[in-house]
C-alpha cells in the first residue's frame, strides 16, 4: 500500500525525541515567540516537523538576511489603503516556528492592505508575491475595518525559497474573504504562517489553493476577538511527482458562540507526491456555545503517492453546540471508472469527471469565479499530465 492515514484524536500525550525544548502536551502549550532562538533548527523528529522534508529547508532555517527581496505589491479599488508599514504595526501574528520567526525578524517592513470601516468592496484586492529565485521573506497585513466587506486574493508565484507571514484582522461585524494561491515553479519552496483574528460577529472565509512548488507548508491559525465570530477555512491542493504540500491549521476557540468550519480536499498523482494535513481545534473552557467541524479528504490517483491526515480535537468544555471531525484518504476507485466507461465515456474523460466530482463541493464553496476558473484549468492540466504518465507506464510494462 502506498497510502497511509493517521488519525489522532483528543488530548493524547505525545512523546518527543531529544531536541524538543519542552514536553508538549497540547497544541495550546506550544511556544510562540518573536525571538528566533526560542526555536532550535528542526531535525525532523519534532511533532510539528515530523512530516516535513526538513533537509530541503536548510536555507530557510538559517537566521540570516535574505539573498533577495521578493516582489510584493497590491492593487484594488480606490477606497482600499495600500501602504508599507513597520513590521510590528499590527502584531496579530506571533511566530510558531523558526522560519516564521526569521521571516518576521528579517522583513524590515510589511505591506498593509486596509479596507476602511463600513466599506463594501465590489471588486477584489489583488496581492502579487513573486520570489525571483533567491531566498527571501515577506510580511503582509490584511485588515478589514468594522462592518466592511471585502475579498483579497494573494497570488504566490516564482522560483525561489520564500518564507512569509500573513496577518489578518477582521473587524467587528465585518465580512472578509482571503484567498491565498500557491503556484510557485517546480523547484520553489514556500513556507508561510497565516494568523487571523476574527472580531465580534465578524466572518472570515480563508481559502488556500496550493497548486505548485516543491515544498509548500502553510500554517494557518485563527482565534476570535469576541463572541459570534464565524471562520470558514477551505483548502484545495493537488500534489504531483516530487511535490510536498503541507497544510496545518489551528482553530483556537476561546470566545463564546463562535463557529468554525474547516474543509480541505487534495488530490495526489505521481511518484513521491506527498500531502500532509494537520487540523488542530481547541475549544477552551470559556468557549461555550462553540460549533466546529473539520474535514479532510484525499484522493490518491496513482501508485507511489502518499497522504497523511491528522485531525485533532481538544475540548475543555461540554457546553458546546457541536464539535466533529472526519478524515479519509482513498485510492482512485476503479469501479467508478468502469461504471462511467460502461456508459461510453472514454477513460481520460471518466477520470476527469471523477476528480472534478471529488473537488466539486469545495470549489462551489470557494465562490470566487476567477479563482474557480483558474482552479478548473490547472486541475485539467494536471490530469492531462497524470494521464500521460500512466500511458507511458503502461507502454513500459508492455515492452
Amino acid at each position, binding site marked *: 500500500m502506498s497510502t497511509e492515514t493517521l488519525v489522532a484524536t483528543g488530548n493524547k500525550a505525545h512523546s518527543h525525541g531529544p531536541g524538543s525544548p519542552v514536553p508538549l502536551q497540547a497544541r495550546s502549550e506550544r511556544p510562540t515567540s518573536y525571538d528566533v532562538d526560542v526555536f532550535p533548527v528542526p531535525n525532523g523528529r519534532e511533532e510539528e516537523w515530523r512530516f516535513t522534508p526538513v533537509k530541503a529547508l536548510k536555507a530557510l532555517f538559517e537566521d540570516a538576511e535574505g539573498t533577495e527581496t521578493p516582489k510584493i505589491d497590491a492593487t484594488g479599488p480606490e477606497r482600499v489603503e495600500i501602504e508599507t508599514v513597520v513590521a510590528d504595526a499590527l502584531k496579530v501574528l506571533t511566530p510558531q516556528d523558526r522560519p516564521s520567526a526569521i521571516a518576521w525578524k528579517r522583513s524590515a517592513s510589511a505591506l498593509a492592505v486596509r479596507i476602511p470601516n463600513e466599506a463594501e468592496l465590489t471588486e477584489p484586492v489583488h496581492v502579487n508575491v513573486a520570489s525571483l529565485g533567491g531566498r527571501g521573506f515577506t510580511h503582509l497585513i490584511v485588515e478589514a475595518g468594522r462592518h466592511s466587506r471585502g475579498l483579497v486574493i494573494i497570488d504566490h508565484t516564482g522560483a525561489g525559497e520564500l518564507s512569509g507571514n500573513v496577518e489578518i484582522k477582521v473587524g467587528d461585524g465585518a465580512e472578509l474573504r482571503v484567498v491565498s494561491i500557491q503556484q510557485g515553479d517546480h523547484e520553489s519552496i514556500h513556507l508561510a504562517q497565516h494568523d487571523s483574528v476574527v472580531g465580534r460577529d465578524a466572518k472570515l472565509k480563508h481559502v488556500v489553493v496550493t497548486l505548485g512548488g516543491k515544498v509548500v507548508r502553510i500554517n494557518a491559525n485563527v482565534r476570535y476577538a469576541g463572541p459570534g465570530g464565524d471562520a470558514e477555512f477551505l483548502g484545495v491542493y493537488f500534489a504531483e511527482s516530487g511535490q510536498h504540500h503541507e497544510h496545518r491549521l489551528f482553530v483556537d476557540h476561546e470566545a463564546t458562540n463562535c463557529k468554525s468550519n474547516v474543509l480541505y480536499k487534495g488530490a495526489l498523482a505521481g511518484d513521491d507526491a506527498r500531502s500532509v494535513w494537520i487540523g488542530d481545534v481547541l475549544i477552551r473552557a470559556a468557549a461555550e456555545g462553540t460549533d466546529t467541524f473539520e474535514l479532510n479528504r484525499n484522493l490518491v490517483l496513482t501508485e507511489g503517492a502518499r497522504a497523511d491526515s491528522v485531525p485533532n480535537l481538544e475540548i475543555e468544555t461540554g457546553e458546546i453546540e457541536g464539535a466533529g471531525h472526519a478524515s479519509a484518504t482513498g485510492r482512485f476507485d476503479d469501479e467508478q471508472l468502469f461504471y462511467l466507461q*460502461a456508459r461510453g465515456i472514454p477513460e481520460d474523460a471518466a477520470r476527469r469527471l471523477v476528480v472534478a466530482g471529488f473537488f466539486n463541493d469545495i470549489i462551489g464553496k470557494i465562490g470566487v469565479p476567477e479563482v474557480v476558473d483558474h482552479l478548473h484549468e490547472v486541475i485539467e492540466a494536471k490530469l492531462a499530465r497524470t494521464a500521460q504518465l500512466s500511458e507511458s507506464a503502461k507502454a513500459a510494462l508492455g515492452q
Partner: protein
Amino acid sequence: MATLEIRDLQVSVDTEAGPKQILRGVDLTIAGGQTHAIMGPNGSGKSTLAYSIAGHPKYNITGGTVTLDGEDVLDMSVDERARAGLFLAMQYPVEVPGVSVANFLRTAKTAIDGEAPKLRTWVKDVNTALASLEMDPEFATRNVNEGFSGGEKKRHEIVQLELLDPKIAILDETDSGLDIDALKIVSTGVNRFAEKGDKGVLLITHYTRILRYIKPDFVHVFVDGRVAEEGGPELADELEANGYERFLKAAAK
C-alpha cells in the same frame, strides 16, 4: 439486424490460490428482437458472463469469442464496447460523488452519439425518461447513485437504458432487491426498450418473478459456468415449480 454472438467463452478470475475458472465454454446468440433469460443458482457464473461481455478488468478471457455484428468485442476497451451498442445494467450501480445525474447522462450521451445532444430536446428527453420510471425530475440534480435507495439505483439504470438506446441490453439481476411496484416499473421500462424493434435483451436473474412481467423468447439455465439446458418460456415455468434442484444434481454427478 443486431447480433451478439458468444462462442465457447472461457473466463477466469485471479484468486489468492491462483486463477479460478468461472466460465467453461458459453455459447449464446442474441439477435435483435429477441429477449433471452439466463437463469441459474448463485455462483453459476451469470454475473461473470455479464461483466466479461462489458469488459470488467477483473475477468480474464482465457478462450472463445464475443462479437457484435461481426466486430470483435473482446478487442475493445470498456467504453468502445458501450459505443458499439452494448449496455450493462448493473446489479450494484456505483456512486460517483460530486457528479450530477444530469451531467453524467449528458456526458454519456455525447460519448455514445459522438456529438452533444441538442439542449432543448435533451432536457425534455431526460425528464420524460425519469417520469416513465416514476422518478422525480429532481433526481437529475443529485449526484450519481449517491444516497439512492436500492430501487432508485435500478430505476436509474433503466433511465440510462432508455436514453442511451443501445443495440443489446444486458440486465444483471436488475430485479434483485426490488419490491413489486418497483419491479413492475422497471419491467415496463425494459419492455418499452425491447419493443423499439431490433433490440436484443439478455436478462440475467436468479428468480422467475420478473418473468411474469418480461416475457422471454428463450430461457437458458446456467450451471457451473456453462449453459446446462435451453428452451422456451416453459423452461421458466418448470424452474418456478421445481427450482434448480434437478440441474444441481446433474452437475454434481
